[in-house]
């Protein structure tokens, strides 16, 4: 104020300008307004409306309440297949994409590792591809022809060709390999950045105390990685149950044989946008919501329990 008065003697004001809701009381609400608007319009309203629709049969120009019929209709083979596939996919991605990247990060972080930066970038490159492009590639790698890449490799070991995308377990292998390829580098980076914040003295102290390499890894590094591990587990579960495009690309947008590639979101897409069962589709959506909430809660309870032990 003082300064302004000196610089602009002609424009003396008692207070800073008041226009545009310019006060410390109002400004924060202006700043957060975009979120509030977006939240109400594009999140809360659709969520409530999904809840309502799940009890309705929605036909063009005609909406009627059908009680719990949509939820009762969930008890069918397709839903079972979708739930089974999504859960199985989530489990396998967890098993592949937590311990392996953690180990790779520990190796890359080791003082003995040379060209660490180069490898970190190289492992990261698959993350730059879209799921669509990755899907195109892996669809071909897992091709059923004798000359397709993976079958060629099988032949080297004297194994017969496989029809990869026609069987439930082999199809799952294709999905998990695709996910592993795209996500490995990102998860390695998460663990690496957490490792780099571990103070070196801690490890050295343990070394002086005579702790071996494995012992140091298990008793110092792994526990210190817990916060980032919880985060990576959370996004992996989230991504696992939300998976759609991978399966859409591998099976060319058509129903996979015996629904081996049907996922929860794929089922919502199929019912909502291909058969226009908006009510039933919403019921699937809300069931998916319940499942993800339960899984998250279980995970939080487990990690909370670990905290008590410490």
């Amino acid at each position, binding site marked *: 104020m*003082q*300064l*302004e008065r000196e610089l602009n003697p002609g424009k003396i004001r008692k207070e*800073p*300008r008041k226009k*545009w809701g310019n006060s410390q009381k109002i*400004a*924060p609400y*202006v*700043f*957060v307004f*975009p*979120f*509030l*608007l977006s*939240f109400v319009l*594009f*999140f809360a*309203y*659709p969520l409530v*409306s999904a809840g309502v629709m799940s009890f309705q049969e929605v036909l063009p120009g005609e909406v009627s309440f059908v009680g719990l019929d949509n939820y009762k209709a969930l008890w069918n083979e397709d839903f079972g297949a979708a739930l089974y596939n999504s859960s199985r996919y989530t489990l396998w991605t967890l098993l592949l994409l937590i311990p392996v990247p953690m180990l790779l990060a520990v190796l890359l972080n080791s003082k*003995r590792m*040379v*060209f660490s930066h180069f*490898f970190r*970038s*190289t*492992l990261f*490159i698959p993350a*730059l*591809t*879209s799921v*669509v*492009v*990755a*899907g*195109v*590639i*892996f*669809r*071909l*790698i897992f091709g059923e*022809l004798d000359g*397709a*890449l993976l079958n*060629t490799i099988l032949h080297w070991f004297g194994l017969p060709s496989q029809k990869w995308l026609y069987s439930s377990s082999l199809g799952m292998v294709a999905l998990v390999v695709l996910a592993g390829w795209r996500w490995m580098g990102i998860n390695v*980076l998460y663990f690496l950045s957490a490792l780099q914040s571990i103070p070196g003295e801690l490890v050295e102290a343990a070394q002086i105390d005579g702790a071996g390499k494995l012992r140091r890894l298990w008793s110092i590094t792994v526990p210190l990685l817990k*916060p980032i591990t919880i*985060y990576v587990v959370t996004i992996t579960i*989230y991504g696992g149950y939300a998976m759609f*495009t991978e399966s*859409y*690309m591998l099976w*060319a*947008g058509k129903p996979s044989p015996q629904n081996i590639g049907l996922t929860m*979101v794929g089922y919502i897409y199929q019912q909502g946008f291909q058969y226009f069962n908006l009510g039933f589709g*919403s019921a699937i*959506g809300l069931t998916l*919501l319940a499942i*993800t909430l339960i899984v998250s809660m279980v995970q939080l309870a487990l990690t909370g329990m670990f905290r008590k032990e410490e």
Partner: protein
Amino acid sequence: MQLWAGKKRRITASSLAMLLFFVLLAILMLFPLYALFLASLKPATELFRYGLNVRLDVPLMSLDNYKTIFMGEGAAANYFGWYKNSLIITLLFTLLSLLLSSMVGYGLGMYRFKGRALIFTLVLVVMMIPVEIILLPLYKLTITLKLINTVWGVILPFVVAPLPIFFFRQFVLGLPKDFMDAGRMDGCSEYGIYFRIMVPLMAPAFGAITILQAMNSWNNFLWPLIVLRTTEQFTLPIGLASFVTPLGNNYEALISGAVMAILPILVLFLFFQRYFIEGLTVGGVKG
């Protein structure tokens, strides 16, 4: 001295083993991209007949597949239209997202006001719930708002995204509040303080979020697939996926189109590696 030298040699041996391991891993990770690139140079009939392989049949190689795209033959007629749509959507989405989510993050991080904790909780709730759950009502809403089959229909529902807000908030929490008071003393409005003083200070966060949102938008599939109804409006991923049909694949356009979708990203990655790595791992910031 001798002991030291001995130790050093042992270190070299084990780092050699590690080096070898990572070289093999790197080859494995890059192999699918190499296979795609190689396939894009071979006649599509090869691919159709024998599947994806890595035989180097130099006499067979040509740029014919790329010609399909550049001449806009058959299903590839719209390829560059899709490219343009993807560029426009990515640009608008990223710019708007930067402006809006930085504002919200700044508001939540810099000010103490009634409802702040509640709003931040709502941000976390949105972050925790998969959007796929509300696809159907969101689709109906998009129709009601007359946004179906438009660029804005793709952009608006997700432009104020929770993860960037969260990231900006964390970043802003680490900025000194003294600058605000200094700005006020100089007669800056609250918004002037934000645009003139704080935005420059938030530059590193802007860098990371630019990459995050641009990549999300460039690669986004499910929502544009739902919103965009006509071929002319498709984005690149939707267009590429449309080459894969139950009736048979348009391999020429599919393979070369996929290479051309990934190529610009790879080139940008070479120059802005650090930003890519920061941007795609912003979720890891400590809460």
